[in-house]
């Protein structure tokens, strides 16, 4: 059994039943920086801790960037030809670079971009920083420190000596009330599961896995996976606002995220078919709070958050969309999005020629 388990290193966020305490591996401090096998989603904690997902190793690292949290100048300058320039610094061609996420440091406001350098099995992870002068620097991960947590093992009933082909793509994550909440999508089982683990990572509590359902059209419910989410207080109650495929917006109170419970979210808006959300941020403008959401095929949406507390739950079929939102026509080709500061958002935009740019935009 041991040999099979050793081979089964591609792991799942939440493959046990709803009632199970997840048997995650022990967490560990990493004394000499994180040893990423791959690097994907990024999220900063308020103190500047960078949470970075490693899909291939099925781990999440909490990285203390130290002095590398800030380049020579504050903020982030626009960079045209971002993928070509990142590739040049990494010593390769743009076709060999895959940008996996973007996150803005909370105090330096430099942008951090996760990148896989190479396409094949020998692809290497890299973390890139862009500062206020537009200087592209590779973060020397050996000069950072990190703690980590390993995602729960996928269950295996067999002893065959074969590797486990199940993998878990981390779609989004956020630090919410002292817990890191992670949404994932497996390549074998299809369900909406959130994994919640306390931070700082500790061996005593390895987190819980929660299967989420949301009401949909009265008779049936769905547990389609969550693609993007953001923590938000709805009427003073800590809540996860989650974006699903085709594109219901669902609120799930954090207090409901308990293992063993059947967690049922409430659909509060329907934002259109043929689409999935990519990224979400919350911001304030003119005294009103908004959710800004980028999508695969429906552009960037500006959604007033005041309706989150008041919208009636959607339980009947909606022809088209329901809920107030505005599509920002000027924002096209947005692949990544984060809040740069109180007045601006930073985007990775793919142009008509396929080249990507890092672009600052005043919040709409």
């Amino acid at each position, binding site marked *: 059994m041991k040999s099979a388990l050793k081979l089964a290193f591609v792991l799942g966020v939440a493959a046990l039943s709803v009632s199970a305490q997840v048997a995650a591996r022990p967490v560990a401090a990493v004394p000499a920086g994180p040893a990423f096998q791959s690097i994907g989603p990024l999220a900063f904690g308020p103190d500047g801790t960078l949470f970075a997902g490693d899909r291939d190793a099925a781990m999440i690292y909490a990285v203390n960037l130290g002095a590398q949290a800030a380049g020579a100048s504050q903020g982030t300058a626009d960079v045209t030809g971002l993928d070509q320039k990142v590739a*040049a610094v990494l010593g390769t061609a743009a076709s060999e670079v895959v940008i996996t996420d973007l996150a803005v440091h909370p105090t330096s406001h430099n942008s951090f971009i996760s990148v896989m350098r190479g396409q094949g099995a020998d692809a290497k992870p890299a973390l890139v920083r862009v500062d206020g002068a537009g200087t592209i620097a590779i973060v020397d991960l050996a000069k950072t420190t990190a703690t980590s947590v390993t995602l729960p093992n996928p269950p295996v009933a*067999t002893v065959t000596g074969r590797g486990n082909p199940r993998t878990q793509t981390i779609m989004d994550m956020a630090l919410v009330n002292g817990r890191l909440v992670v949404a994932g999508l497996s390549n074998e089982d299809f369900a909406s599961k959130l994994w919640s683990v306390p931070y700082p990572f500790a061996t005593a509590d390895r987190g819980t896995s929660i299967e989420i359902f949301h009401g949909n059209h009265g008779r049936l419910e769905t547990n389609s996976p969550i693609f993007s989410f953001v923590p938000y207080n709805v009427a003073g109650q800590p809540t996860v606002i989650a974006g699903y495929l*085709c594109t219901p917006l669902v609120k799930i109170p954090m207090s409901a995220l308990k293992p063993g419970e059947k967690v049922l979210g409430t659909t509060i808006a329907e934002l259109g078919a043929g689409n999935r959300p990519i990224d979400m941020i919350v911001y304030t403008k003119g005294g009103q709070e908004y959710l800004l959401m980028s999508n695969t095929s429906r552009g960037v949406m500006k959604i007033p958050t005041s309706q989150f507390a008041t919208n009636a739950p959607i339980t009947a079929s909606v022809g088209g969309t329901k809920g107030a939102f505005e599509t920002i026509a000027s924002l096209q080709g947005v692949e990544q999005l984060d809040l740069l500061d109180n007045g601006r958002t930073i985007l990775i935009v793919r142009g008509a020629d396929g080249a990507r740019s890092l672009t600052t935009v005043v919040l709409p």
Partner: protein
Amino acid sequence: MKLFGNGRGGRGSAAPVVFLVAAALGVSCSRPPTPLEISLVPASGSTAAFVRVTGLSPAEARTLHASPLSDAAWAEILRVRVTGNDELNVAGTYSVTSGAVEFRPRFPFDPGRSYSVQFDGNRLPSPRQAVVTHTIEVPAGPVSARTQVASIAPTGGVWPENLLRFYIQFSAPMSRATALGFVRLVDESGAEVKEAFLPLDVDLWNGDRTRFTVFFDPGRVKRGIRPNVELGRALHAGRKYAIVVDAAWPDAHGRPLASEFRYAFKAMPAEERAVAPADWKVGAPPAGSRNALVVTFPWALDRGLLQRAIGVQPAGGTPIEGVIAIDEGERSWRFTPSASWSPGAHELVVLSILEDPAGNRVGRAFEIEMFQKPLTNPGERVTVPFTIAGR
């Protein structure tokens, strides 16, 4: 290697430059400095290939070693760029050894890619009026056979119209590119069935990138969900379809596939029952043999999950080691033990995550009634007893 003197010419004008450099360095005129030379030191063991510049005098090396230079200052002296990029330097580390400067790239040089290297002696702490440039290239590896689609599962050519997922198996590792733009569902007339799949831009590769999972849009699969109401299911029982995989999907070497791949199948009525291991037929081999245990299912189960969600053990014991084979059509599962079967009570251990390709899992169909209480939960695993008879 090319040697330029003060930007005024090539090898033909080296002599006066040598004189100037020698004078600047305070070296005897009768002994010209060693020419600077750039070379690529090949990879060795765990050490990746790196750039070495030789020809520095001991004094030059000492001065350089003692100079606290920033990376930017180093890059002014020794500049390494991807050929064709005239703006940005390759990131790496610099070091000084006796008589040489070395540059180790942060990431190994790509085999087959050329890099332009320039060493500017004018930028040394003790300037030498010489600029040397050289193009380096790590030899490309042997060319392997072109990658192709090996198979698509479910195999057997019949899919339920509420199919949730299928697997594309490749003959070799692929690039990190997802299936977006490379996989289509077409009907009998060859017309594409649009919006059939979950957005294909999500990384659903297995660990070595030889298998990609494609999900049908569950909103269209599931009755009553808005996309299903508005668009209907992508598949209709009784009709014929094909999955088409475009040859342009790049493999791990960036090459297109050997050819386009088409997998033809016929849609069958939806499968909406929960998986029930109690209904399986277990064909137990005799004790003392190493014949395969054959488990037959009433309908096809998911090929991926069948690899890990069923085990075999003596009743109440620990799992037996062996090899799993799954028959064409995923209707039967064979387990050949590493050691001969012992007589007595045995059991199949079935994890409740086991699903059919339509997402129906053990004890719970994919479509369940809203607010159903309690949620059917068969636990983590169920067992199916069987007996290995003695000879």
